[in-house]
């Protein structure tokens, strides 16, 4: 019995010794692989735009984060709205059923975007808001409630736009809000009413040439919760924006970035071209650098289940764009031609498509 056990033990050991070489090789391979995988992490992350490995990572991450159910939605989120209709539904009924003083459309707007939604300090102390977005709000109020002044404006910071809608603090948000896939899972958008793209704003004297390598080691300001902020953070993780660019400065409103720029606390601002032009209009020493590096559309945001209101706003937008006397074009000429140029063709979105069915 005892001899048998020894024999078996010896055989086992021999067998193990045979596997030992293979095991050692496997171990070496694993270590080498680990080193190869960890090596990029130990290198200083200063890689220029588009190194292969991180680009791959970006695609997977983008897919995980943007929450787009279909590639079509990611490619053209602005086409994902409901077809226009003038019919009243439960949301519009609820607004119309407000009584007395409260019978008003509650709209979230900006009060700091020059020529979009702002208060002219010299208007005489009434606190009236005005601008391109505000014109549209008055038009919507007139159509739904009959009087263009039946509006209660609520000024909301950039990162409060979606919570304000979800909590029911506002009926809609008309505040230079970009239609994108991630936001679509939280709110419903109308058809686009304006076309723009992200642009870089910097002092004329700065060596910055646009959204490129010249932003390396620069401090860039964005608004918290803005498209620009999401885009820049994503690009930096993906490696297409220099990792030395400092994105730490975020502010409640894009206009606060101009303050930081003027005080020398940041070197550049990234925001929508339409808003960047508004900032440049307030300070002759800064300018837009390079071309827009994205294409985006502004839409009116509403509660996710407010189908009747979305259709109604889309109908209003159709009428608004057709109305040459006091519609989209007139508002553009009044507010934006001074900062964006007389030609509105680059700002007017293409004919809307209504691909959302429910």
């Amino acid at each position, binding site marked *: 019995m005892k001899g048998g056990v020894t024999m078996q033990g010896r055989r086992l050991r021999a067998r193990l010794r045979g596997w030992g070489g293979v095991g050692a090789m496997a171990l070496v391979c694993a270590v080498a692989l680990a080193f190869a995988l960890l090596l990029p992490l130990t290198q200083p992350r200063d890689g220029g735009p588009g190194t292969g490995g991180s680009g791959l990572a970006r695609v997977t991450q983008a897919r995980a984060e943007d929450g787009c159910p279909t590639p079509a939605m990611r490619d053209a989120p602005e086409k994902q709205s409901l077809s226009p209709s003038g019919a009243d539904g439960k949301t519009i009924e609820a607004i119309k059923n407000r009584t007395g003083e409260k019978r008003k459309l509650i709209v979230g707007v900006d009060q700091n975007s*020059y020529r979009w939604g702002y208060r002219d300090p010299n208007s005489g102390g009434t606190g009236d808001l005005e601008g391109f977005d505000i014109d549209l709000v008055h038009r919507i109020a007139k159509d739904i409630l009959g009087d263009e002044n039946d509006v*209660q*404006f609520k*000024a*909301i910071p950039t990162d409060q736009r979606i919570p304000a809608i979800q909590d029911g603090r506002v009926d809609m948000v008309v505040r230079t809000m970009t239609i994108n896939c991630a936001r679509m899972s939280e709110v419903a958008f109308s058809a686009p009413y304006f076309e723009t793209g992200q642009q870089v704003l910097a002092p004329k004297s700065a060596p910055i040439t646009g959204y490129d390598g010249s932003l390396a080691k620069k401090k860039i300001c964005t608004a918290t919760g803005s498209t620009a902020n999401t885009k820049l953070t994503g690009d930096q993780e993906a490696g297409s924006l220099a990792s030395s660019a400092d994105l730490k400065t975020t502010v409640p409103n894009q206009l606060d970035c101009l303050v930081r720029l003027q005080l020398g606390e940041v070197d550049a601002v990234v925001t929508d071209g339409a808003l960047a032009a508004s900032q440049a209009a307030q300070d002759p020493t800064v300018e837009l650098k390079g071309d827009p590096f994205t294409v985006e559309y502004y839409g009116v945001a509403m509660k996710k289940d407010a189908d009747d209101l979305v259709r109604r706003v889309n109908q209003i937008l159709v009428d608004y764009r057709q109305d040459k006397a006091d519609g989209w074009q007139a508002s553009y000429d009044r507010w934006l031609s001074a900062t964006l140029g007389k030609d509105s063709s680059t700002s007017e979105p293409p004919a809307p498509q209504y691909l959302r069915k429910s």
Partner: protein
Amino acid sequence: MTHPAKSSAAPPPAPGVPTIPAVPPQPTPPGQPDQYTRPGPQGGPGLPPPPASPQASPQARRTAFAEGADRLRAAATTEPGRLRIIGALLALLVVAFGAVTAWQTADRSAAADDVLNNSQPLSSAAADIYRSLADANTTASSGFLAGGQETAASRERYEKDIDNAAEGLVEAAANSDPGSPAAATVADLNRLLPEYKGLVERARTYNRQGFPVGGAYLRYANEKMQKEMLPKAEDLYTKENQRLRADYADATPYPWAAIGLGVLALAGLAWAQHRNYRRTNRVLNHGLVAASATATVVLLWLVVGHSVARADLNASYDDGVRSLNVLHDARIASLKARGNENLTLVARGAETKKVGTESVDAYDYDFKTNMATLGKGLAEAEKLADDTTGEQPVTQAVGNMAEWKKRHGAARADDENGNYADALARVIGAKGATGECFDSVDANLAEAIDHETTEFEQSAGDGLSAMTGLSAGAAVLAVLGAAGAVLGIGRRLSEYR
């Protein structure tokens, strides 16, 4: 000066003393030969008499201490020696009493002087800096953020606030010890004030051009004030208040060491006189009586003067400082409430806060909290006010506050209904706006603060003057007393010559 050795009326016989001694008594210490001791040839003036016993004959190589101890022991064996020791001890006791009294009362009087002329004015100045900064910010940013161009009156008020704050900072800097935390805070505020002012100036310039970036500058200035400057100013106020309390704590405790020494000195003097009486049957020794009298005067002066000062200082704290603290806090609460009321309109419902399940306007919520603090503060101030002059402005402020709450409710209702322009008029308008109520509350609190400051200054000034001259007087009287003790003993001693 000198008395007869025996009073003309026969004194009551003292125990242990021979009745009616015809000559100066010759006390006989036990175990000593009855002898007159005179300064011997070896004993120079001031030296103890030579040892009377042969055992004390000089030995070779003694330490000075041992020799001194021996001499002392030897001296204690003879009456003149004992008298010398007693005289020295009594003089020492009286001088120590005077010195400790002078030292302890000088300390307390310096602390009381600090309370009156240094720490309380600084604490008030710090409260004023805080108030000026907060008021400047409320005036500059909110009114104009909510309603366009600022008025001439609000501009003037802003400038005055900034001037006040700058002056207060200069004063605080001059009165803070270099390198102390308070000095660092003052330096920070001195650095931030021009920064803040620069931001407001830029905001004004852009505002005149009609650019909304002016509003963005004001938001930035407001943030700097709320997040950096006001916390520092509050910190300074807290520190100055701590200093005030520390000065009170230094000024009020009883000087137990001095009192103890005084009692000891008096007991010593009494014992010496009693001993004198026992030995000589003489009742009064002029020197010792004078010493007792001065020591008694110093002790009485010390106890009474300090008790009065202490009572006055405590009254200045209870009637003045406590009221002032409550009033300052109430004033700051009303300022904060006003700021939040304005910001409610500036933000137009942008910031909300969850209270339970309900979502409420964050600034309006803070306003209500500040108003509750103000209400509590005013109630407390009313309770603390000890006369009608002090109570009246507080009562009026309570009335202003009630009206403010009422008007605020109306303004909120307008805003909730979307009548923004009406709400604005109800808050920053010219007539019937909540701004009027805030101004009245502020003015009434300022009046109450003035009154309480006067009360404080009176009580603390009385307290300080109750201690006036105590240290110097104690020192002089103690020297006189010690001289009296020495002379009195010397008188007895001279009888042995």
